[in-house]
């Protein structure tokens, strides 16, 4: 079974620039999550989608972060404008069901460095 695909793997941008990450979940997984993992910390959930609807985005900094999941499959996470403190690994995960357990399948992540 193919895993969760993310791109790019690495991205370096200057502060105040914009960046977008892409995620393709496991086929058939209705729930998709975006996490932010800052070096030395555990992953923090940013947003959770159920199909193409947002279930929870209470921890998403909405002044600069946005995410969408068109057609309930692929998802993009955007940061505009980026700040130095956004440097982190952005993980996408997917699962069959929502609300009962964490996304059990994670992608390799996109490592963002803001300089």
């Amino acid at each position, binding site marked *: 079974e193919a895993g969760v695909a993310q791109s790019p793997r690495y991205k370096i941008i200057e502060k105040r620039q914009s960046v977008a990450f892409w995620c393709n979940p496991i086929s058939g997984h209705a729930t998709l999550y975006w996490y932010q993992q800052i070096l030395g910390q555990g992953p923090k959930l940013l947003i959770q989608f159920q199909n193409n609807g947002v279930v*929870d985005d209470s921890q998403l900094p909405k002044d600069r972060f946005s995410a969408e999941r068109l057609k309930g499959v692929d998802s993009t996470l955007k940061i505009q404008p980026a700040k130095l403190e956004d440097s982190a690994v952005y*993980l996408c995960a997917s699962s069959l069901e929502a609300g*009962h357990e964490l996304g059990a399948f994670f992608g390799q992540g996109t490592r963002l460095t803001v300089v």
Partner: protein
Amino acid sequence: AQSVAQPEDQVNVAEGNPLTVKCTYSVSGNPYLFWYVQYPNRGLQFLLKYITGDNLVKGSYGFEAEFNKSQTSFHLKKPSALVSDSALYFCAVRVPPGEGSYIPTFGRGTSLIVHP
């Protein structure tokens, strides 16, 4: 508010010896507890979970974890460590549906190093 503590940044163990990676949690209500492993340059992989039932949960790769409600702990264990078990381990907690926000909280992670 819910929280997870992994008191050890690093655990060192010799191959063949038993290993324990500690996790304690704080949550109002009944916890859902999870362990994930992160190998270098790989995404997190689910190891096991406790939702209800038997306090001893068995998971992937020979790992198991014991839920102890009185001590609010969910320590990860393996009877005989392998060098290939060397990785970063994360404990996570959330509350069940209907008991509040189910945004999961992860610990900071514990680096397990298994020496040959």
